[in-house]
């Protein structure tokens, strides 16, 4: 078979010569190798102080977007939950009543929306399935917790604040809304 790497070596069991038997050259060779590593630049990123630069399409913690007027985009259609291979998303829908037009964009909305971050595999299929451009994955990292139930993120953690929007312009827009 064609060798895949250039490191292929033929193994043999011929007896060692005296030069090989005293081992010193081999040990010195090994020490040179470790010295080379000692002088090498370290690639460690010391996490809390420095962070790695994320790709623009990094798939981290989700956000439920609002539109320009601050209304929730999500209509609780459930397509994200259907698309989710890990079954991490649950929601209940409710009908928008009079006087709530400034809160929800369409007549139906999600009264509760939960993502279990322990189940989520961050595949991004929910984002792909969403017809309303309501859910996006961002470059934020899901923080660690001590209790399992703290990983179930409800709307208070998922929906972006009106005055503190999450920037997702670096991500690819599907352009579904402009088509409509």
């Amino acid at each position, binding site marked *: 078979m064609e060798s895949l790497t250039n490191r292929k070596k033929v193994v043999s069991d011929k007896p060692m010569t005296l030069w090989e038997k005293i081992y010193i050259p081999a040990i010195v060779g090994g020490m040179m190798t470790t010295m080379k590593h*000692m002088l090498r630049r370290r690639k460690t990123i*010391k996490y809390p102080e420095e962070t790695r630069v994320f790709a623009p399409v990094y798939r981290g913690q989700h956000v439920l977007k609002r539109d320009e007027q601050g209304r929730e985009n999500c209509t609780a259609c459930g397509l994200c939950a259907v698309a989710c291979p890990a079954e991490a998303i649950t929601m209940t829908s409710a009908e928008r009543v009079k006087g709530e037009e400034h809160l929800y964009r369409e007549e139906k909305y999600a009264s509760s929306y939960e993502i279990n971050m322990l189940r989520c595999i961050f595949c991004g299929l929910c984002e792909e399935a969403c017809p309303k451009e309501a859910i996006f994955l961002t470059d934020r990292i899901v923080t660690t917790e001590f209790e399992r139930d703290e990983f179930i993120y409800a709307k208070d953690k998922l929906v972006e604040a009106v005055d503190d929007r999450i920037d997702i312009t670096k991500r690819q827009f599907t352009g579904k809304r402009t088509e409509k």
Partner: protein
Amino acid sequence: MDTAMLIEKSALVLLLFLISLGVAAYQTYFERKLAAWIQDRVGPDRAGPFGILQPIADGTKMFLKEDFIPAKADKWLFIIGPGISMFTALITSSVIPWGTNVNLFGRDISLQVADFNIGILFVFGVVSIGVYGIMIGGWASNNKYSLYGAIRASSQMISYELAMGISAITIVMLTGSLSLNDIVQSQHGMNWNVFYQPLAFFIFFITSLAELNRAPFDLPECESELIGGYHTEYSSMKLGLYLFSEYTSMFVSSAIMAVLFFGGYNFPGMDAFSGNTLAILSIAAFALKIFLFIFVIMWIRWTIPRFRFDQLMHLGWKVLIPVAIVNMLITGLVVAWNQGWM
């Protein structure tokens, strides 16, 4: 002995004690850093800038751990074991000449605690006692792994002490004195013994690694086979003392290697200086040599794997001792020829 001498020797003893412990503490830090660098890591860097306070944190941790003595252990021997290890590791430093004489308050102070005329014998004697710390600790633990570690340590020590002693005899032959002070003074300037006895130095270095239980000779405490070897049952500061004594004896035997083969505090061009300048420079030269030895010992540890026990015995008895004996005989003949005895 007058009072001033008593005071200056006590001060020197105290200073040496503190320096040995300090150096041992920072050796642990340096060893961890070096291991990290060799393995492309950063190493401890959280405690203080560059992790410089790490040894203090480690020491505090050791003190705060539960001090546990196994139910069936021999309690007194269990306690004495680490003490002997630490004692023998520290006491060897008393015969080492750390530099040329210092002139302080109008007195010429020698930087050697005790100038024995049998200094080198004293070193070997104390080093041999050192194994009792390990043996007693391992035996008193009443644990199979500890006992294995202790037995390995003692057989290894016995095997390697022979070659070590024989290679050191060549230095005694060349110098004609057992006093470490005389040995150092005979290597004035760049006239170091290693240029006359490279083979003896090589054997001495390898056997020192074995005496120190350092890799590749760390069989008494190899984690993968014996859990922790002789200190399996130890915890808290008793374990700390064992680990500490290992680093202290590493420091001291680096100093001894520097004294016997690398001219101790001598450095080329030392005749240009005199008085306290010379003393400070000689201490610095000696410290540099010790540091280099410590560095090489650690470098070896993180490079090569451990011996198998039969390989260890083979190397000790069938290779090092014959080579050392041949080297000693040749040295003896050459010395006898030069002295006109033949």
